[in-house]
């Protein structure tokens, strides 16, 4: 409690908690790390079959296009799903004296970020196979990671305490995320949305994010900096509110679990 936000200590605590999550995920499965890759790969297979053969979308390098969208979306989605369990599933940690509960959402997003990173080489392999050159624009990727991390984290700070109070949050979240999947340019191009709806459509921050990733990876260009900076500002504002709510709810965690 006294030294919980001390930098060196926070780093160590984060590291241990993330390692714990990752070790647990793979401890008792033979396939291990492959599990986290299997899900986006299966989705890739299905969607690719549909939109290349059944309903052709006519997007160049569709597999790479699709896989980029899928990986980015998967990191976002799994983090939010895991957010519902961030507090509830760590009951015994919350009840440890002096445990800084505020670190748990960070662990949630970070753990899923690591799965995302592990899948990244496959995406790069897709690029190479498709004949897309790996350009210096890839250096902008870490910046995109940070933006997505912040945005996701700000939402996790909202969701985690809500789920402590309302235990059916995850079902509602499931519906919202399903909707979000179709409202984000994961398997289609954002430009396919009619111009008069573009304004509303682009309120979804995932549109900016996924497009930025594609700009960097597939076109080898720098992403539009202004919309990303705007997203950072929005994320910070969300974070401030979310963290405030989280902190107020925190004193009740121990009782409500």
């Amino acid at each position, binding site marked *: *409690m*006294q*030294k919980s936000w001390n930098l*060196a*200590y926070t780093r*160590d*605590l984060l*590291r*241990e*908690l993330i*390692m*714990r999550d990752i*070790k*647990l995920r793979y*401890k*008792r499965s033979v396939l291990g790390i492959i599990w986290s890759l299997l899900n986006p790969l299966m989705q890739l297979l299905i969607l690719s079959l549909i939109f290349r053969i059944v309903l052709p979308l006519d997007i160049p390098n569709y597999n790479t296009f699709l896989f980029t969208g899928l990986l980015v979306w998967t990191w976002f989605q799994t983090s939010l799903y895991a957010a519902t369990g961030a507090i509830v599933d760590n009951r*015994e*940690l*919350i*009840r*440890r*004296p*002096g*445990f800084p509960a505020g670190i748990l959402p960070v662990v949630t997003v970070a753990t899923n970020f690591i799965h995302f990173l592990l899948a990244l080489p496959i995406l790069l392999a897709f690029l190479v196979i498709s004949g897309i050159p790996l350009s210096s624009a890839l250096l902008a990727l870490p910046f995109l990671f940070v933006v997505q991390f912040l945005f996701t984290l700000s939402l996790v700070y909202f969701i985690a305490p809500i789920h402590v*109070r*309302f*235990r*059916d*949050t995850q079902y*509602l979240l499931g519906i919202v995320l399903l909707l979000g999947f179709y409202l984000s340019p994961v398997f289609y191009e954002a430009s396919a949305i009619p111009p008069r709806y573009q304004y509303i459509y682009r309120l979804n921050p995932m549109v900016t994010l996924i497009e930025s990733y594609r700009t960097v990876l597939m076109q080898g260009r720098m992403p539009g900096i202004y919309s990303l900076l705007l997203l950072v500002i929005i994320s910070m504002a969300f974070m401030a509110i979310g963290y405030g709510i989280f902190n107020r709810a925190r*004193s*009740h*965690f*121990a*009782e*409500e679990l």
Partner: protein
Amino acid sequence: MSSPIIVENLSKQFHRYSSEKKWTIQEAVLSGFKRDKSQDYFWALRDVNFEVPAGKMFGLIGRNGAGKSTLLRLIGGVGEPTEGKILTSGRIGALIDLGAGYHPDLTGRENIYINGVISGLLRKEVEKRFDEIVSFAELEEFIDSPFRTYSTGMQMRLAFSVVVNTDPEILLIDEVLAVGDLNFQQKCMDRINLFKEKGCTILLVTHDTNLVANLCDEALWLNKGRVAACGPTDMVVMQYTTAMQTETQKRTSESKTAKVIDDGNVLEVNKNRFGSFEMEIQDVHILNSDNLPATHLNSGEQLTIELEFCAPEIVTEPIFGITISSEDGTVCCEASASVADFGQQRVNGSGKISLEFSRLDLARGKYFVDVGIYEKEWTYAYDYHWQVYSFNIGEGNRNNSLLDPPQQWKFESYQD
């Protein structure tokens, strides 16, 4: 220096619903976000005040549901008080829910690192203490096996070992001393004593009154969330056991009204008087060598303490106890006698018993005479008056000593 643990006007209210059923968004929407909360609250703790001085061991006793564990958790920073505040200073080590936070699928080694860091250590500090933690837990051979393969005793040993190796300045212990085999328990006790010597402040929650009596300097008895008694361990423990006994006998001791005694002191149940009152101490006289009531005596003078008692119903072999203690609670002299010692088996009606000290070589100061009548096995008190009667020793030396026996210096000097 202020005390490491200060609890001020602490109250904690709980929602009753949280333990029964989780609320859902569906219900919230259907009920228009209104919820009948009128009867959903109860106080788990009410107006609790106490301080634990640095380096002391403090016992919290009370029955199940009295709020002991809630209090301990709040002190550990888990949850927030509804009213009042808790001030703690120093790294807190907690032996609460031992084994929580230990994941069954991770190895002992992995669990040590995670829990060491969760307990407030840096990773490299854990690394440095790793061997010590393992050897204290006696788990060298199994440290790379999954935690789930450990026996309960092994799991507890490991959890205990991690906490005691984090150098806590405040140690919170909740009923976990019965860890492992006798040998390990002894090791735990040794370690706790070592902490005490090093100036660690310890808070122990238990309903084992013997444990509290043996270990703690001070104790607090919580009854239904309120402080029933707080002070020197012996007094609190005796009061607690007596109350437990009284309750089983369905006797109401609350009905006794406060009584003013000769010197203006007030005798009040559950404050300086407690017992089941199957027998009562009617009056206490402190008499000097002339058999006259005295409040001032000289060191080395004769002193008689006389107890008038009454037993409304037959009581078998009660024990009378008299303790003379100094103002700070140090026991100077303790004596007890059973009715059986006088060749009798039971007492009924009133009577008198006296204890004569042919001389009392106490140093100058104020002394309390605590008197009690106890059940024949000492399990509880029929009536006990604590720090009610006193006398002063007026003459003689006042060093930091308790005794001032007749003395004489002799001096010889040899010169070559």
